[in-house]
């Protein structure tokens, strides 16, 4: 039954392979564009979620007789202004921006995600609506409302905000660990996947940390006596304490990763291990300062230090998101869609028909190339490689493969998933491998106006043999 479901699913994807007009981002790697915006959006969204929880806590402190200094209401109102101005504006628009950017970078990937999870995204939207109504109502009328109603609004706001995390977390973690979904194609198998819970708990703590650090910055902008400031910072530091659970959740997350993904984190990839260490190091510094300094020794914190810690938290978020994106390689959806948005079945098909044979979009600068073979290579690069590589810029192929011999290039490209196991298999016949090799050689040789066509049958046969040896995907 599962085999049949998978077969039908893949067949529908093969039939639905759409060619889209792909743009060149120059020296900028496409993955960096979506990654950069993603990190910024995640940070703002997590601030909005944690901010709601923090305000609930302060409002509760204020109305339950624990506010001896009588400043909690005022702080909540001031903090909410920042939340509205930063999160409601930038957070909302960068969220929409993530969709638009995903379309620009990898339309087939976002298309599959929308196809599989549109009802859950629609569910998330109902929580957005609740979040915006509760948030703006509090922003507009909160000062005039009695405490119990203020708390109700804040609880509604923060619950809705947290549920938006709940839904999107399931979709993002599915990309990395789809679990039994790969067999059953059941939406709930995909949603409640192996990394769903550790990721959800971890992100919830991150939300609390960002909110608390932002609170420390806001408290320092308020003209308050030092005793009041110290008290507010002490209460905010309570939201930093769950950081002590982060190592456990981090280990849980790494443990549920597929073995090959786990090895990237544990030294298999220098870049990913490095970013992992940046995230862990930054988080440890924040946790140490928070638990020992702010909570245990009840130190205060000035605006500059609070801002520095917030920047560190941003760095940790960036590191963590880079790791999450990186360990997915060579997939955008594990075992389903490779990072160049092709399925295993499509790769088999393209090895027969050619990957760009039916691409209706011409090269934008076709006259730049000396012959049709190099043009074909440029088109293959655009479809299969340009999502992660550039010509000369970030992750540029000239830097990575410029020193290889032609023979090396032929074998390494034909057996791409063996050359580097975070690369997808090559999706084309020998002619496309050779075209890509010639295009690369032409680039390495500074783009001369004349370039010979390579049409040696023995070379083609050798490439075909290598492709055959690398058909285990």
């Amino acid at each position, binding site marked *: 039954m599962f085999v049949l479901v998978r077969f039908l699913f893949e067949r529908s994807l093969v039939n639905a392979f759409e060619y889209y007009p792909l743009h060149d981002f120059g020296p900028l790697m496409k993955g960096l564009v979506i990654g950069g915006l993603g990190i910024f959006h995640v940070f703002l969204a997590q601030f909005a979620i944690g901010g709601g929880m923090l305000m609930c806590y302060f409002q509760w402190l204020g109305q339950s007789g624990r506010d001896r200094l009588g400043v909690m209401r005022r702080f909540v109102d001031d903090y909410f202004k920042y939340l509205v101005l930063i999160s409601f*504006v930038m957070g909302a628009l960068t969220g929409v921006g993530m969709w*638009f950017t995903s379309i620009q970078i990898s339309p087939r990937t976002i298309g599959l995600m929308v196809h599989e999870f*549109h009802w859950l*995204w629609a569910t998330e*939207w109902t929580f957005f609506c609740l979040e915006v109504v509760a948030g703006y109502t509090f922003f507009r009328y909160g000062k005039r409302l009695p405490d119990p*109603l203020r708390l*109700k609004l804040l609880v509604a706001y923060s619950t809705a905000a947290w549920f938006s995390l709940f839904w999107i977390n399931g979709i993002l973690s599915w990309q990395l660990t789809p679990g039994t979904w790969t067999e059953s194609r059941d939406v709930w198998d995909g949603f409640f996947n192996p990394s769903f819970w550790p990721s959800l708990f971890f992100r919830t703590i991150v939300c609390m940390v960002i909110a608390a650090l932002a609170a420390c910055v806001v408290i320092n902008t308020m003209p308050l006596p030092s005793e009041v400031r110290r008290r507010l910072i002490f209460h905010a530091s309570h939201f930093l304490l769950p950081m002590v659970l982060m190592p456990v959740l981090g280990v849980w997350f790494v443990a549920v990763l597929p073995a090959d993904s786990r090895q990237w984190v544990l030294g298999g990839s220098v870049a990913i291990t490095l970013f992992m260490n940046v995230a862990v190091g930054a988080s440890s510094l924040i946790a140490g300062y928070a638990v020992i300094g702010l909570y245990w020794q009840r130190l205060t914190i000035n605006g500059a230090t609070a801002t520095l810690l917030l920047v560190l938290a941003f760095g940790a978020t960036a590191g963590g998101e880079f790791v999450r994106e990186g360990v997915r390689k060579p997939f955008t959806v594990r075992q389903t869609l490779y990072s160049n948005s092709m399925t295993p079945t499509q790769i088999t098909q393209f090895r027969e028909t050619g990957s760009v044979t039916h691409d209706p979009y011409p090269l934008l600068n076709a006259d730049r190339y000396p012959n049709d073979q190099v043009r074909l290579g440029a088109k293959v690069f655009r479809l299969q490689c340009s999502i992660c590589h550039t010509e000369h810029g970030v992750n540029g192929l000239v830097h990575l493969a410029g020193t290889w011999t032609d023979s090396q290039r032929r074998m390494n490209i034909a057996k791409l998933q063996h050359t580097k196991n975070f690369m997808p298999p090559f999706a084309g016949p020998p002619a496309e491998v050779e075209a890509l090799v010639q295009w690369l050689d032409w680039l390495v040789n500074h783009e001369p106006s004349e370039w010979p066509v390579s049409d040696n049958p023995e070379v083609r046969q050798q490439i075909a043999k290598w492709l055959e040896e690398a058909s285990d995907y």
Partner: protein
Amino acid sequence: MDVLFPFGFPWPTALYLTLYVATLTLHMLLMHYVLAGSAWVAGSSLFTGFKSSPTRPSKIIKLLQDWLPFALGGAITAGVAPLLFVQILYQREFYTANLLLFHRWMSILPVLIVAFYLLYLQKSKWLEQRHPQLRPIVWLAIVSCFGFVGYSWTENHLLSLQSQDVWTDFFADREVFFSTIQILPRLSIWFAGAFSTLCAILAWQVHVHRGETAIDLREEAADKSLAVRTLSRVAMASIALTLLATCVYGTLLEKEIVQVLFSGLSWPYFAFALSGWIVQFAVWWNLSKVGTTSRTSSIILTTTVVMTAMSLNVLREAIRLSQVDLGALQTQHAEAASVGGFGVFAFFLVVNSLVVAWLIRSVATSK
């Protein structure tokens, strides 16, 4: 197709079309408030902003200045759902148009961010303390931003309706703008129509708004009467101009598309839209005479505005459906509908709507 929209389609297509039209209508009402509201304040500030003596802002202007940031936040949030359903309904077409317009399309995001912050800026004390002539400049910038976003959406939509050959040429020629004779009349319909929606919403606001600082009740009543008469005039002009723009647009459509509009698929919606405008015009005519709104008049206006907006959105879809490969799309819709999760969406749509209503009621009765 001669069966009334959306009943003649297979149920998955009908479901997604219905959800798309319903959520787009919600987005459109808020978007109309933002677009027409900012244009109104910009026009008014241009008129009064360069006078040497400061003028007291009218009730309508005060309401708009106060509520526009929330309306924009609401419009963006409401826009997420139709943005989702359009990706199910017309994925290839929508993605291709997005990609073809590339950075020109993506620029709507920073433009919206700028507009959002300018809306908060115009409420700030900082701007109040600056030179009075700065205010109309800020408002012109705001309305320009929204105009650009509206233009970009219309352009994107029309580009998505083109054939593969047009897309290939557009890409090969490195075009940045998609020019077609339909853009201006379509924009005119939306822009002119936005004012009648705005007036209907403002009628509610004028009706329930008591003024936070007004002590002189006679002044408050005079303000209200003036506001209602102004709204009536603007709304009637808006309806007339929308009808005119619709007629102009109709003359530009191909014969086959006009036939679709008058087929069993969509002519009842054409009739709904037209009757909605007629009723609205009649209500506004009456309000311009009496100078005051009532709950009944506001309910009639709201109902007919929603009816007209929804009907126009159905007509918009009828035009699109006549230009796309419906057979291929219906297969994709059926595949999408086989994915689970609809029950959860329906459940939380109801629950969260009830919570929203409860919160609003709690705050309204508490005040």
